[in-house]
């Protein structure tokens, strides 16, 4: 099985990997005069990086990337956003800061809700890029991050490799969220295309509280004892699925593919309970967001940046600090 997995590792951590899109340059952008003056005078640039929920587990890592960007010469980068995913809160904050920002990077919890504010900021002559979660319908200049459908597809492929046949449950803490729907469709596509021996029985919506998640997985497994594969779409149901499989002595019999590198996830990969996990490199996303804006303001032509997916199995999990 490990041999099989080896072939999946080719994607690796590729950064920055330029995707095909339209490169943009500041010459083609109606930059606000005050920002142009600041750039010309070599003053410090105020870059704001707005995240859709600064209280979730990625926020600290993305913030770390933003802080790395803040350390760049003549850059003051700030990490902002609402506590708890809240589109209104995110919009209000951006509106309040509009006159002080020289560049905005934004990860939007809701594409439709945030496109108008992105367009307003762009119309005010302030460059906007998206990171982590894209908003392709807006006037944003470029995107730095991982393609959600693509990452879902990667997860599906990995599942197919470790678990070519049998019944699968998909786990997500918010089945109705756009990111979840994107990853789910990517995963289902990949499974349907490459893995005709598998069947996705149900998508389980676990809720966000750790207890709730575990209970939901427990109930679902009891209701579907023939399940042999668990595909988690995010950070948090991954270790919960690991805990259930580990505690019920099903390690190896029920395969798990999930996302991210929470402490428990790393432990379970080491123990062989979780077969594979996909890292989104949130720190790299935070840094890329600042870096792209600074480059753009300084006249460089910029384009979408793929911060890549990192795939970890028991073979390479030791690389995680």
């Amino acid at each position, binding site marked *: 099985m490990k041999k099989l997995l080896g072939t999946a590792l080719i994607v690796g951590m590729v950064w920055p990997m330029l995707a095909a899109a339209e490169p943009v340059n500041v010459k083609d952008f109606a930059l606000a005069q005050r920002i142009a003056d600041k750039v010309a005078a070599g003053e410090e640039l105020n870059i704001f990086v707005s995240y859709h*929920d*600064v*209280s*979730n*587990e990625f*926020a*600290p890592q993305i*913030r770390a990337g933003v802080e790395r960007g803040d350390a760049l010469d003549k850059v003051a980068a700030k990490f902002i956003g609402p*506590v*708890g995913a809240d589109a209104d809160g995110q919009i209000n904050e951006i509106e309040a800061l509009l006159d002080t920002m020289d560049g905005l990077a934004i990860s939007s919890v809701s594409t439709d809700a945030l496109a108008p504010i992105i367009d307003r900021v762009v119309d005010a002559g302030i460059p906007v890029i998206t990171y982590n979660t894209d908003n392709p319908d807006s006037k944003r200049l470029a995107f730095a991050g991982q393609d959600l459908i693509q990452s879902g597809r990667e997860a599906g492929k990995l599942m197919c490799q470790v678990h070519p046949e049998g019944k699968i449950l998909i786990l997500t803490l918010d*089945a*109705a969220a756009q990111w979840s729907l994107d990853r789910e469709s990517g995963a289902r596509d990949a499974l349907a295309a490459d893995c005709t021996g598998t069947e996705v029985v*149900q*998508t*389980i*919506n676990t809720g*966000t*509280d*750790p*207890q709730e*998640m*575990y*209970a*939901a997985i*427990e*109930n*679902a497994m*009891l*209701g*579907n*004892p023939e399940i042999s594969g668990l595909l988690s779409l995010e950070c*948090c149901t991954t*270790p*919960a699925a690991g*805990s259930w499989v580990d*505690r019920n002595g099903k390690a190896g019999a029920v395969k798990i593919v999930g996302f991210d590198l*929470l*402490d*428990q996830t790393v*432990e379970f990969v080491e123990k062989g309970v979780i077969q594979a996990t996909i890292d989104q490199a949130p720190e790299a996303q935070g840094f890329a967001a600042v870096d792209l804006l600074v480059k753009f303001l300084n006249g460089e032509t910029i384009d979408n940046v793929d911060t890549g997916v990192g795939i970890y199995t028991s073979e390479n999990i030791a690389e995680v600090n």
Partner: protein
Amino acid sequence: MTGSLAQPATKAVKKRFSRFGGRETGVALALLVMCIVLAILNDRFLTTNNLLNIGRQVSLLGIMAVGMTFVLASGEVDLSVGSIYAFCGLVTGMVIVAGYGLFPSLMVGILAGIVIGIINGLLSTYGRLPSLIATLGMLSMVRGAALILTDGRPVTVNARNGANPDVLGQFTFLGQGAIAGVPMQLVFFVLIALAGWFLLARTSFGFRVLAVGGSTKAARVSGISVEKVKIAAFALMGGLAAFAGILSIAFLPSGQAGRTGLGLELDVIAATIVGGTSLAGGEGTIIGTILGVLIIGVLRNGLVLTGVSPFAQEFLIGLVIVVAVAIDRWTIRERRV
């Protein structure tokens, strides 16, 4: 199904109802009907394994609902319990990760919960804020404090992060262990429910809680210190929410301040109200609360077992809450006129 209650009862039957609470009969019947339907729909429902699972799944909710019964019965409400649950669980986790022993770690968490509860009580009595507002503020403040304290990072209680392996073993036993096959969480829930029942039904404190909730004025005329009773109810709630939060992090040795216990207060209040405790105060029993908790737990479990879609589950849970409380209120109306 509750119509039979409205029939003129013989004296003996009436006496039994008044002693063991005719109030709970409606909820008990609702639970029974749900269980029968689920047992017919899915043959895995009635397995020992599944019943123990349900027991464990409702334990933390149940522990908090016992506390909430006191708060609601005293005529107040506590919206901050989900935040207390997160804050105190995470604090205890952090203390253990910092290498301290089991007892001091538990004490820090539980005391933190009691202190927050006392603050809730002080604001709602001497501070003259409606408890709805006071605890709404605390809901936000306590979660904010948890985020500040953890810097938004998940807290994972494991040896790698610095926990003493012996302490870790004891701590995880509290959440994950079992005695004679019964999960520890369920053991704690049963013990706390028994103690809560005794406290509410058999002690002068419970009496005072019900009196204060029934009529502040009448309680004062009886020489009861309304403020102290309410503060004590909030403190009890805080301590129990903290303990539930600690068990949560002991069970899944990881928590995150933005996520753990989010929105839990509504589940706790819903379970308590379904169990017949009056939002207006003065009425409430622990037996009713346990039934309310079980209704919600059995429903969650049963809906997944029978393969109902996640979105339909949300709808059905809400429906059952409304129907259960409606049946309860209608039967009371019948009895009270």
